[in-house]
């Protein structure tokens, strides 16, 4: 197990390194940089040259990359070129918001999606199944930002309520924080709940046709035992894989939802750093996203073994 984890981490590190090179080259492959943004059209060439030297933008790209990588490996993500704050702190606080959003969404999506999926599977082909399937299809087809917009309209029209415009962290005011993230979480969760329930239904329906279920029923085991001890255990692995996928999807969806609801999360930070060409922030933010996605995948693969000891990791 230890060897497996080490190998996986090494492979992930190589991919993350390649990804960081891609990002680095991409941001430097286009005309326009932070200096142009700062000084505007009527820039003084002497000042521009001095600023470029200050940011190291006059160096060859490979040297810029090497010095960036060296500092990152030493734990220093540098300073934001537009705000002058340490990148680490900016990314950290934005990540906190996105993690809260993702965690709440995952909980809500699981709480809605799993029971719906089980319900649909039990009543396969009958009315409850049809209704759940219609919900799934609509949930998967509706764009997440559109759900968010329509929730805003609906809340405003029926309760004369709109979410606050300024984000308040959870530790400052629980109620204000929750009223700020309620609609974003709901918009993201509806889509993921649909995906979840679709998946759970499909897994159970196909498991019900398997021999081991038939054997368990024929042995005279109660429905409850068959369901919890036999069936759920066997669909555990795909379910955990799916949870990982959903988490990564929420991370992506957060970019859109954060920009719609003005949440200061990682997605908004990425968007604003792209706009202002704030390379240190952009590079750090993207690296964090890639590393999180990789860790989620690793944890998913490791949990296979806990769920099913027969699984061999190689």
């Amino acid at each position, binding site marked *: 197990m230890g060897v497996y984890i080490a190998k996986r981490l090494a492979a992930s590190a190589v991919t993350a390194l*390649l990804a960081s090179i891609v990002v680095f080259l991409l941001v430097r492959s286009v005309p326009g940089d932070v200096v142009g943004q700062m000084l505007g059209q009527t820039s003084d060439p002497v000042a521009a040259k001095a600023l470029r030297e200050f940011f190291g933008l006059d160096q060859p790209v490979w040297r810029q990359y090497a010095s960036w990588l060296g500092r990152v490996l030493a734990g220093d993500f540098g300073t934001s070129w537009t705000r002058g704050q340490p990148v680490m702190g900016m990314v950290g606080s934005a990540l906190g918001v996105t993690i809260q959003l993702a965690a709440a969404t995952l909980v809500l999506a699981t709480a809605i999606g799993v029971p719906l999926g089980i319900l649909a599977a039990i009543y396969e082909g009958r009315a409850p199944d049809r209704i759940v399937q219609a919900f799934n*299809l609509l949930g998967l087809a509706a764009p997440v*930002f559109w759900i968010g*917009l329509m929730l805003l309209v609906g809340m405003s029209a029926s309760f004369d309520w709109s979410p606050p415009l300024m984000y308040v962290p959870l530790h400052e005011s629980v109620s204000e924080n929750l009223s700020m993230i309620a609609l974003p979480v709901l918009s993201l969760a509806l889509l993921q709940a649909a995906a979840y329930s679709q998946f759970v239904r499909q897994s159970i329906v196909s498991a019900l046709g398997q021999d081991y279920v038939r054997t368990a029923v024929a042995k005279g085991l109660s429905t409850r035992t068959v369901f919890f001890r036999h069936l759920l255990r066997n669909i555990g692995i795909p379910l955990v894989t799916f949870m990982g996928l959903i988490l990564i999807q929420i991370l992506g969806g957060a970019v*859109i939802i954060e920009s719609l609801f003005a949440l200061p999360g990682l997605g908004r930070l990425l968007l604003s750093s*792209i706009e202002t060409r704030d390379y240190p922030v952009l590079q750090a933010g993207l690296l964090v996203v890639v590393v999180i996605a990789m860790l989620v995948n690793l944890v998913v693969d490791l949990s296979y073994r806990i769920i099913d000891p027969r699984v061999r990791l190689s």
Partner: protein
Amino acid sequence: MNASSVDPTFRQRVAKHARRLRHEPDLLIGLVLSGFVLLVVLFPGLFAGHSPLAVNVDRAMEAPSATHLFGTDDVGRDVLARVVYGARITLSICASALVLAALIGGVLGLLSGFVGGRIDMLFGRLIDVVLSFPPIIFGVMVTGILGPKTTNLIFALTVVYVPLFFRIARSGAMAEAGMIYVEAARSMGLSQGRILLRHIARNVLPVILVQCMVLFPLVLQIQSALGFLGLGVQPPTPDWGAILQQGKDYILLAPWMSAFPGLAILITALALMLVGRGLQRRMDRR
């Protein structure tokens, strides 16, 4: 192709497939809805009486009425016309990205799976790098950095979906390469290239085509999300995501500016999902 040249067994096959539709209401609904969307794409003039670009500030933000079924936007343009003419723009971008991704991913995947060795290693690494980003974030990164232009948007969507086609084509090629018919072809002295093109590619193609249909709604979601973030097609061109982006600022004053383009995305995605699933099911059954 004229009618007499159609081989009768082909016609029988079409008839058989059509008959089976009666037992698959979801696929039928999907086909009808997709047909409707296709009609809108091909003949927008049939569905919209106004120009999608004609500005009329005196009639800005009017609620839906008989003259403007979907209402008007912040500069008095007809929302129905914008949604109808937007179908062609939005869907042609998605379709081009899909075709390019299927082509590039398919060719690279076939090569990787059939040739193996170092090529397989190299392609595999590149694909892993793309897959290490959540798709939307990759799209935001590419379009954001390269600039909001239609070609950049198509490029970003293509790169995001190449890995999926690559994997399908690669595993298909690997599975087919071990088949007896390939060995037979080889022992008959056929060249590697010929085996790959005439035999393996031909057997992997249907899987890739079905995958195109399955992925279409997902491409549409990402395309419109990028448009919504202002990173896609730029106004005043009517693209569904871009219309929603403009409507966002007036969401409480003129919700119809956002409601209808969103519904258009929903209906199109639903139609394509139903068709994709139906095709996938038929494929799995074989």
